[in-house]
């Protein structure tokens, strides 16, 4: 085992590490990759990061390089004399105080301008949405149109979006990595965040401040649509809930819903006006269930209705969760699911 | 050889690099830390000033004249503390006892005043959990009161020890250190009194 081989391995490792960062920065296939921005906000952040990253690489390579060279060159060999007792060098001290200071200045200036940039008021044409975070789902309210949805935020492409973030219970954090940086959702405060999406598509987001047992499952989606699609969506959401055909399975589901679920959920145009859970007026148009990590499917919906806590297990003693309805028969669950899916 | 060494070692046990005794340095260092402690408590109070959403509010229940008197009592106790130390340093143990007891009594009087004030407030409907004012007020002043209480125990211990000849002119530093603590607690009260009672709400 010679020190040379060790240091060679170390050098190899260092370069490997650098290579890994590059790979991480470029590879796709990760729906929440900050390295793949799709809105101005996230892009400004990434553009700020890249140069700082490269400066960091340089700093690291210098430091690590000196270490490696020193260890190879100055390794003790038998019979070596005691080295010259070098106590310090003021010029060097000044140099290596100033050099980092300059690098930092180069980082600080764009940092400060970007802070200001991201906080800039988006202007009047912006779409304002109220975002209400709560254990463990998100409500989105469009004040201009009165539309309310859960865990799915629809916004138009190319138009600034201005989000007003509020919390119903504890601190959460609103985060869609490809669109914008985070902003905490703090009870008693209204924080804001702005972004302008530049491509149609679906963007995955998730709560980023630890908020209890189901923090991991406090997910949501931002659906960026063309202006027309978005307007159409708003129109449709403003309709009262679809009324099922009398005698149909959906009607049966509605009846069951009104006995079991109306205390917590609202379906506009019906007597269900509960405020505890998400507004389900247009649940049939959703692609997610309760911000779960699992994808949407009718089976999953049934499972949710039948026993929500088994899908999103909370902490014992907490009351805000949707309860299990294990007493409902399969047929009844089918009926409720059919009703909810009909609520386009 | 061994005698010389022992003597040197003994002398060494009392040598300090700064000339300040360990105990005194300890007390000063502790007080610096305690400053931050009270600083954080007062900061909490100041941050929450005027942010209670329900009453009772300070101006409804504070009895400034009463509290001024009890603050004066505490201030007076600093004076008696100085007198106690001065007496001991001059070797007058009996006089010392009188003043140290007086200091402890004044401290107790202050605590009595605080007890009265607390019961009075709770009769006006201010509890620990009533509002932010209640929480931050009671915890701040209560912790200060606890400091005073510990100080009283300390003073009384010194008083008692003086009868066993353990508090003397040549170790008056013991009393001096207790005095540092006592004056500190006193000064903290002046700060609290200013910020909590006197600042217009």
């Amino acid at each position, binding site marked *: 085992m010679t020190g040379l081989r060790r240091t060679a391995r*170390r050098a190899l490792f260092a370069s490997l590490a650098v290579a*890994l960062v590059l790979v991480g920065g470029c590879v796709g296939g*990760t729906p*929440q990759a*900050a*390295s793949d921005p799709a809105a101005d906000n996230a892009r400004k952040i990434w553009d*700020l*990061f890249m140069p*700082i990253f490269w400066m*960091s690489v340089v700093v690291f390579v210098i*430091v690590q390089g*000196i*270490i490696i060279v*020193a*260890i190879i060159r*100055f390794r003790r060999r038998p019979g070596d004399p*005691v*080295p010259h*007792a070098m*106590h*310090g*060098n003021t010029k*060097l001290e000044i140099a*290596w105080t100033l050099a980092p200071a300059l690098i*930092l200045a180069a980082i*600080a200036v764009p*940092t400060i301008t970007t*802070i200001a940039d*991201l906080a800039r008021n988006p202007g009047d044409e912006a779409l304002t949405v109220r975002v209400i975070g709560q254990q463990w789902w998100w409500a989105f309210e469009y004040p201009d149109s009165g539309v309310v949805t859960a865990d799915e935020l629809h916004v138009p492409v190319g138009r600034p979006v201005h989000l007003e973030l509020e919390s119903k*219970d*504890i*601190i959460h954090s609103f985060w869609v990595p490809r669109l*914008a*940086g*985070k902003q905490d959702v703090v009870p*008693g405060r209204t924080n804001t965040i702005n972004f302008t999406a530049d491509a149609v598509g679906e963007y*995955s987001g*998730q709560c*980023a*401040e*630890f908020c209890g*047992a189901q*923090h*991991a499952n406090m997910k949501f989606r931002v659906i960026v649509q063309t202006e027309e699609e978005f307007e159409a969506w708003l129109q449709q959401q403003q309709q009262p809930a679809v009324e099922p055909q009398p005698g149909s399975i959906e009607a049966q589901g509605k009846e069951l819903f009104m006995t079991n679920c109306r205390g917590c959920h609202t379906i506009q145009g019906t007597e269900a006006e509960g405020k505890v859970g998400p507004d389900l007026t247009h649940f049939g148009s959703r692609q997610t269930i309760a911000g779960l990590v*699992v994808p949407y499917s009718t089976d999953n919906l049934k499972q949710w209705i039948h026993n929500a806590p088994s899908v999103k297990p909370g*902490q*014992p*003693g907490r009351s805000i969760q949707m309860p299990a309805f294990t007493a409902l028969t399969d047929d009844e669950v089918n009926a409720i699911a059919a009703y909810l899916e009909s609520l386009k | 050889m061994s005698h010389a060494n022992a003597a040197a070692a003994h002398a060494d046990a009392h040598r300090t690099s*700064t000339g300040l005794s360990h105990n005194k*340095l300890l007390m000063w*260092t502790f007080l610096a830390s305690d400053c931050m402690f009270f600083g*954080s408590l007062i900061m*909490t109070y100041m941050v*929450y000033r005027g942010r209670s*959403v329900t009453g009772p509010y300070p101006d409804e229940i504070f009895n400034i004249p009463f509290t001024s008197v009890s603050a004066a009592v505490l201030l007076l106790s600093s004076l008696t503390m100085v007198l106690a130390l001065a007496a001991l340093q001059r070797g007058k143990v009996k006089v010392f006892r009188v003043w140290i007891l007086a200091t402890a009594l004044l401290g107790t009087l202050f605590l009595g005043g605080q007890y009265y004030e607390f019961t009075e407030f709770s009769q006006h409907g201010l*509890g*620990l*959990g009533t509002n*932010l004012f209640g929480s931050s007020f009671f*915890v701040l002043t209560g912790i200060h009161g606890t400091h005073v209480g510990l100080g009283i125990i300390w003073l009384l211990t010194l008083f008692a020890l003086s009868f066993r000849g353990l508090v003397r002119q040549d170790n008056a530093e013991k009393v001096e250190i207790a005095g540092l603590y006592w004056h500190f607690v006193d000064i903290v009260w002046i700060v609290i009194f200013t910020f909590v009672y006197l600042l217009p709400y």
Partner: protein
Amino acid sequence: MAQSAFTLERSAPQETALSRLWSWLTTVDHKRIGKLYFFTSLFYLLVGGLLALLIRTQLAVPNNDFLSPDTYNQVFTMHGAVMIFLVVMPLNAAFFNYFVPLLIGARDVAFPRLNAFSYWVFLFGSLLLAASIVLRTAPNAGWFAYANLTNNTFSPGHNLDYYSMGLQVLGISSIASSLNFVVTIINMRAPGMTMMRVPIFAWMTLITSGLLLLALPSFSVGLIELAFDRLFGAVFFEPSAGGDPVLWQHLFWIFGHPEVYILILPAFGYISEILPTFTRKPLFGYPFMVYSGIAIAILGFGVWAHHMFTVGLGTVPNAVFGTTTMLIAIPTGVKIFNWLGTLWGGSIRISTPLLFAVGFLGMFTIGGISGVMHASVPIDYWQTDTYFVVAHFHYVLFGGALFAIFGAIYYWFPKMFGRMLNDKLGQVQFWIMLVGFNLTFFPMHLLGIDGMPRRIYTYTEEMGWATWNLVETIGAYMLGVGVLLMAYNMFTSLRSGQPAPADPWDGRTLEWSIPSPPPVYNFAEVPVVSSRDELWERKLKKQAVPAAVKGGSGEEAEGIHLPPPSIVPMIAAFGLALAGGSMVFKEWILVGIGLAILLFSIIAWSLEPNE
């Protein structure tokens, strides 16, 4: 020599298991207390590491249900709390205790019984936290336990009462021992040892202790307020009453940020002792090392809000705190470069302590640089609460603090126990750990880039995080192997290791001038110091090495005044912990009993003869 030392310490004439135990319970010898800290915190390293392995096992694959969500939350909270409060801090305390008096040429700390008290409070406080793990009601709101998740509505159960009481008790221990070290270092330096001759490790101890004294009270107040909210219905963090959960964050981080320098400054100390010894060169730029340490401590008080960039403090505070945070890179850089200057031109002896020191330089730099990235506020909008942050702080905490501590263990173990550790095994351990460490924590940067939030107990396949998570888990098990190797190394060394000479590394500072392990009284003659590397200079000038190396006689030692053993510190600590522990269950009678025990033992303490 060691024999006569023992006679001094021992109170019972006949050596029995009981009297040995008693001698440990009543010890006020800084070296024994140091050993107690040492083994207690190594035990907690296994606990904290085991919790880390649970985390890594759960996250190894997507949709894993190895741990339930609530268990996971308890596990990561306790992993963080244990590693910080029960591993790194007390391991540092172990070395403060053992080596500060030796380095400054003192016979003990300024307040030996207060020192014992600190240890026992630490032990009982840690047992309170450990009990919560065993009872499966451990704190589960993260190591910084943000309000108002921690109030009674959202956290029923005792979990967070253990947090508030356990950490409060531990805090008292830290305050007590910091007071002790400040006084010791300022007041007990050997004759001739001016502040500018104090070995850097002792300097860093002084700064660390000062930081603790000034930073910890803020957290204590936060914990008091939390306890009042939870136990007595106060409304400090209750938004419905106007309370502001963000106040907790301020109180926490005003402590929490200085805390990270409390964790790393001692590490800077170890490195500054190890490098000169293994390069046979004096530390490069000693005064700059001192000043930069002070600068870091002072700046450290003005940056806490960099943990709160996304809370909504406003653009101006964010810009200010971001900039002040970056400034800390300057004094830290000064340290790094001075260490490089020490290496450069030296005569470098490759052995385990040096390898860990050099590993520290590389790994800590990576962690420091990612810290600077966080300090760039907009970047932190993205990086905060992701695995990028987890990567940052493991690079500075493990690659920094713990690597340095491992180096210190290999460096000072021979002095503490009189036996050498196996250097070959140590080097193998180092390489396993270096590779395992980077496998575990480097990919966390990439996961941060890929948008993986921290503190999630599960994730799905679609997120594309599975591969790196698996790699990390493999790395974590490698680290486990490394830790076990070290445990094995210590174990065999204690049983049958090669006896250590007084000065195995050709050292420079005073601790190497006395036998390994040192006699109870440390220095038969208190050395008179005339330079920074006192022993080295004496060796160079072929001057008399202090008497003890030549082996003083027991006779000499008899005359040395040593504080007598006492059980009172332990009883006092027990009272304090009993009061704290009973608060968790609102057992007021027991709280009263605990406080009474505390009070009476303190009075008894002050009546005990001499200190």
